[in-house]
Each structure stands twice: as structure tokens, then as C-alpha cells.
């Protein structure tokens, strides 16, 4: 169980990071807040083992770079996801290989650690397999935008911040990625409004 200094419970991320410049140990609060959700996202893309390493690296890098963080940004989530995304880039080929394997065989090659769950793997349905193949064929930048929105639940603005790209670029990449997925799935109504 994690006990948190009372005065920090309600502090925004920006305040936490700012105070960590004088009291470095305060940075650990960000780990408590975000490590698991960042891990879940990275694990969905690259599997548990790589996620374990990348999450550790993400927070180390964030700590070393904390002086560059704009304290006016009360949520550090986009910043942390951005660091994780950069670290994931070196594993792009592995990610695409996993997705193609899922498309080809219907079995997800990202194994679950046995200590966490016993899962009877059901073969992926046709749509899941098609989706996996379409994801593998997306340019990395489009895939990053798409999955930050769909899996990390970042807003368009947060995604732009995470990837350090204009908001308009987020919209265009997302539009392009969704169109490709729709085409792969058999071309649903392309004029349907985005949610």
C-alpha cells in the first residue's frame, strides 16, 4: 500500500514536478499515479516484458528531464505517454510482427505472464485479425496517434502534446488511419461522423 504525504494528495502533476526540483523524492507520486496505466498501454502494443522495461525507462527519463516540464500543464499524462512512445519506436518491427502474426494465425503472440492470469485463449475472430493486419500496415506516426486515442484515451490535444505535433496533424493522421481500418474491414460508411 502506498502512503502519500497529505499535502501532495490533491496537488496537480505540474505542482508535483515543480516541487520535485527541490525535493526529488516527490517525483515518486507521478509513478504511483501513472505507472500502471502507461504499462497497460505499452503492454497492449508490445507485451508485458517490454512494457516492464519501457515503463521503468519512461519514469527515469521523465525524472531526469523534469526541469524541462512546463508546470502550467497540470496533467503529466501526455508527457509520460510521449516519452513511452519514443521508447516504443525502437520496437516498431516487433510490434508489426506481432500484429501480422495475430492476423495470420488468429492467436495473439503477446503472451500473458502466468502469475497474473490463466486465460483460455480463444482464437481471434475475423474482424480482430483484419484489424491487426491493418494496424501493422499503418505508418508508425498514424498508428501512434490512433492508439493513443483508442487505447490510452488521450484527447486530440493531449495526443498532440504527447507527440509534439500540431493538433491539425493529429486530426489528419487519425482520419487517414481510421479510413484505412474501415477499408480493411470492408469499407463501412466513409461519410460517418467521427465520435
Amino acid at each position, binding site marked *: 500500500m502506498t502512503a502519500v504525504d497529505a499535502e501532495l494528495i490533491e496537488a496537480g502533476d505540474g505542482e508535483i514536478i515543480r516541487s520535485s526540483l527541490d525535493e526529488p523524492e516527490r517525483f515518486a507520486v507521478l*509513478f504511483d499515479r501513472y505507472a500502471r496505466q502507461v504499462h497497460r498501454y505499452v503492454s497492449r502494443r508490445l507485451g508485458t516484458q517490454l512494457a516492464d522495461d519501457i515503463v521503468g525507462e519512461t519514469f527515469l527519463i521523465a525524472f531526469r528531464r523534469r526541469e524541462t516540464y512546463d508546470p502550467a500543464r497540470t496533467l503529466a499524462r501526455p508527457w509520460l505517454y510521449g516519452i513511452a512512445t519514443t521508447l516504443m519506436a525502437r520496437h516498431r518491427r516487433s510490434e508489426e510482427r506481432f500484429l501480422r502474426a495475430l492476423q495470420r494465425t488468429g492467436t495473439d503472440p503477446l503472451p500473458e505472464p502466468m502469475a497474473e492470469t490463466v486465460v483460455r485463449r480463444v482464437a481471434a475472430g475475423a474482424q480482430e485479425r483484419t484489424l491487426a493486419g491493418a494496424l501493422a500496415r499503418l505508418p508508425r506516426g498514424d498508428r501512434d496517434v490512433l492508439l493513443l486515442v483508442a487505447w490510452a484515451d488521450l484527447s486530440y490535444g493531449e495526443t498532440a502534446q504527447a507527440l509534439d505535433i500540431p493538433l491539425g496533424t493529429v486530426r489528419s493522421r487519425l482520419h487517414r488511419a481510421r479510413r484505412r481500418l474501415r477499408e480493411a474491414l470492408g469499407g463501412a460508411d466513409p461519410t460517418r461522423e467521427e465520435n
Partner: protein
Amino acid sequence: MDEITLLKELRADRAAMSARAEEAARARLMAEITGPAAAPRRGTRGRRLVFGALAGTAAVTTAVLVVPALGPEPLRDYANAAMRIERGNGTWRVEIKDAYADPGEFGRAFAKVGLDIDLRIVPVSPRRERRVIQVMMKEGRGSVPEGRTNSFSVSDCPADRPECPLTMTVSGDAESMRWQVWLGREARPGERYADGSPGLGREPVPGLRLIGRSVRDATALLRERGLKTAFHIDEFQPDGSGTAYEVDPSWRPSGGRRVTDAWPFSSDTVTLLVSSRPGDPKPVPGADLFGD
């Protein structure tokens, strides 16, 4: 159902970060935070963050910060050619010049200042050499006051030199705790790895899928590559609780049983995990035991 909704369902059932992985990542962060490069901009010493609580005899791989006990205390230093130990404000700081030197020497030095820290150099799988793979708090030597916490942080070996300078920070009621630290070294050919366990989430042999195969197929594939097989049995429940244990090396499951996990046992042996069935052997005395 639109493509975003379908996409949100893809891999939505991934397991959460394991407690072990979370503690290991936190320990790395805390080692960075308490290291010399992270000194605060000003020399202020405010109230330190209570990060976590360690209790009982549970094995932990973590590092926490604690509230200092009382006011400043006199420094108690110890130094020899191999290491230096300083105490101040309720915290011990240990600097070892080369952890791969004589660990027995360190134990004697710790004893002189009243600390019980057992530093062990253990053979590990590739990529884990020069890393602290486990920090355990054993049963205490005395009683710990209610509500008090203890902390232990230790750095990995730097990658840019053969020796291993190590920094440890211990605070709280450190004298009443017994600590065991495992530091990885390169294993000799055939030497058993100390860090083998289920739940690594990856195949042990690059390019070879073992998980999900029959025991017959998996052992044949390993044999083709000149690798031997050891077996563990798991008694995991659907909610993830339970144990996995080592069995007598001479035991072999039937060839049709499925491999549910696999990890490196040594440079020439892979451990295959199978789920328990009636009639399976029980753990051998002193066996590896993972889980609850």
C-alpha cells in the same frame, strides 16, 4: 460497430502490471532519485515523502522513503579500502567500490555499524548481469514500532566499467531488519540462473515458440537446438493466485500436456511449466516456489 469500437476491444483483456514489475520499476526510480545526481537545487531538507510501507517477512524488490525518526543524529562513519558507510539524519548511506569483490568483507563491515545486509552475487540470465535483481527484507532482529516504515534503495552496476561501484541507502529502523540483496553476474555455461521464474512474458529462446505447444513438441524443438528441459508445475487459479513449483529433475509429464510458460533455467536448459493434474509430484524440499 465502427472501427474505433472494434479497436478498443482488441487486446482489452491484457493483464495489469505485476506487483513484482511495479516494485522493480519503483526501485529503479528511487535509486535514481536518491542518487547523487538528483540532489535538490537548494540544500533544503523538508519533510520527505512516505512512499510505501514494508512489513512482515514478505520478499520485496523495492525502495521507499520514510519520514526521518527524530532530529539530526551524530554521524557514524565507517570506511575501509573497499567501502564507506555514513549515517546521518536517520539514514545510512553505503558506498561500495566494487560489489564483485569479496562480499564477505562487506558483511563484516555492515556488522561493525549494526547493519545486517547480506549481499549475494548470483548467476543470472543474459541481460540481467550487473543488475540488482532482488532486495528482500527478512524477519526482523527486534520489534519495529507500530506505524514505522523502513526503506532500502540500491543502484545497479554502471555499464561503462568492469567493476561494480554500488550505492545503498537504508533508513528507518534499519538495525532491526535483516536485508538480502542479490546482484547478478554472468553465469558460467550450464550454471543455474538465480532469476528464473514464470511470468516473464516472453519466450526464452529467440525465434522459438514454446508456450502453447505440447510437451512432446517443445522438448523435441529444444533438443534440436541442443537444449535440455526442466519442469515446473503450476497450481494457478483463474484469478491469478496460487503457486508454481519445481519438481524432481527426473520427472517428465506426458507428451500431450501443454506448455503454459517457459523461461531459461541455465545456458543449456529451459524450464517448461505445465498445469497440475492429479497424481503429479509435489515440490521437492527446498524447491523453487513462486506465487502466493
